[in-house]
């Protein structure tokens, strides 16, 4: 089947392996606090030229932040969240 040239509209939904249900591209495009989910290229590359599309849509800095930074091990990201939360606790007390 030929790839479509542009992002599909919201009628087309594919299964999100992280959430466990169908989502449209418009969600993946902004999932990470306005930036794409780190798996967007992985999930959508077989449906349309998603990398070309996002390289045009994102600044080089946004592209780098989204796709080219090493993904942290889970424990490390949890530790970072603990530190942030501790700060919230201090400010609240």
């Amino acid at each position, binding site marked *: *089947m030929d*790839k479509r040239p542009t992002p599909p509209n919201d*009628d*087309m*939904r*594919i*299964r*999100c*392996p*992280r*959430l*466990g*249900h*169908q*989502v449209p591209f418009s*969600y993946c495009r*902004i*999932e*990470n*606090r*306005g930036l794409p*989910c*780190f*798996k967007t*290229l*992985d*999930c959508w*590359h*077989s*449906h349309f030229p998603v*990398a070309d599309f996002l390289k045009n849509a994102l600044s080089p800095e946004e592209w780098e932040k989204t*796709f*080219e*930074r*090493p*993904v*942290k*091990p*889970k*424990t*490390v990201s*949890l*530790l*970072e*969240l*603990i*530190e*942030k*939360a*501790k700060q*919230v*606790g201090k*400010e*609240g007390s």
Partner: protein
Amino acid sequence: MEVKKIFLPESELPRQWYNIQADMPTPMEPPLHPATGEPVGPDDLAPIFPMPLIEQEVSQERWIDIPEEILEKYLLWRPTPLYRAYQLEKYLETPARIYFKNEGVSPAGSHKPNTAIAQAYYNKISGTKRIATETGAGQWGSALAMCCALFGLECNVWMVKISFNQKPYRRIMMETWGAKCVASPSTLTQAGRQILEQDPDSPGSLGIAISEAVEAAVTGEGSKYALGSVLNHVMLHQTINGLETQKQMAIAGDYPDVVIGCAGGGSNFAGNCLPFVRDKIHGKEIDIIAVEPTSCPTMTQGPFAYDFGDTVQMTPLLPMHTLGHGFVPEPIHAGGLRYHGMAPIISQLILDDLIRAVAIPQLETFQAGITFARTEGFISAPETDHAVAIAIREALKAKEEGKEKVILFNWSGHGLVDMAAYEAYLSGKLEDHALAEEQIKRALKEIEPLPKPRQFTG
């Protein structure tokens, strides 16, 4: 009449979990604290996990006793039955004997309560009053909600807003078990309020929901946090599944040539397969297959080789599964698939050649799910369909080869609240595209001149 279900008596329920860390050929390296650069210690994780779970996270003990209180609760659904898939075998006209372990019989409908019940117990004895967690579609959230109810703990679930709106039945399950289920981002946490200030219509994300749950655990008196995948203690608790299966296979008088599980975060795969990995380490010949629910072929088609971490070749050479630094999608280069949501234990076992990873197209998984439903009756969760699909492939391969293979797969959960995914398949809204062989060859050519790491697999 042939025996369809192999039951294990309750008296035979395993009394210990199996910790693969004691047997791994390549020991796991401890994660480093981002602030200090030192290995993460128990105190670092104490704000969100009770100490018994932290001890299990780093334990090197091969066998860990299951407390009596957990065993009592396990008996609500365990031991789960092992089925012989006679109708599927007949439909496929295969000489293979196909077995599946039915983890869908738990009250929450999946394997997730195997660790949720243990986490709830260890929190209870450590003085925790409430547990916070995040969930997407709600499989994990509903499992934890049930297990907290069984131990008299409060449960607060931050459910990603897009999921909260799309998956009302899982939310209602959580509420039925007494959990408080909140759409994330919420106004209950600083993390949620910040997002809503910027975007009041934010559909949320797992990242935001995790931030909210961790914040609630750290700042709330008597609160802790629980995670349903990836971490070592989660893999440990799930092994009760595989340990039961080994006893049931012995009752059936068979031993698997192939063991199959779907690998997303790794917990359902680990649960059934890790005890068999132990057998493989000790000399058994078993093909253990982790099925990836992804369209990216890098881990399965790319060798483990040195490559640049970026397309402009500025980073040091890193050993990784790669299809060349010019290949898109680049996320693979940024750390390798091993950290893309997969449990580190599973990633390392793949690298050590004890487990084989296979990727499978989406349509084939749903076709397999339909075939399974129309032969064996059960409607699988879409993730579970990945394991079903590879079991069918292996059974057909056995037919071609004329071999009486024994195939075992983990049927990790039912799909009765996932029917929208089946509706999309049945109405023809799903489609697949194969990556051209030529495209892969072109990408791999880029890494040919680079040095090869010790664990090179090309």
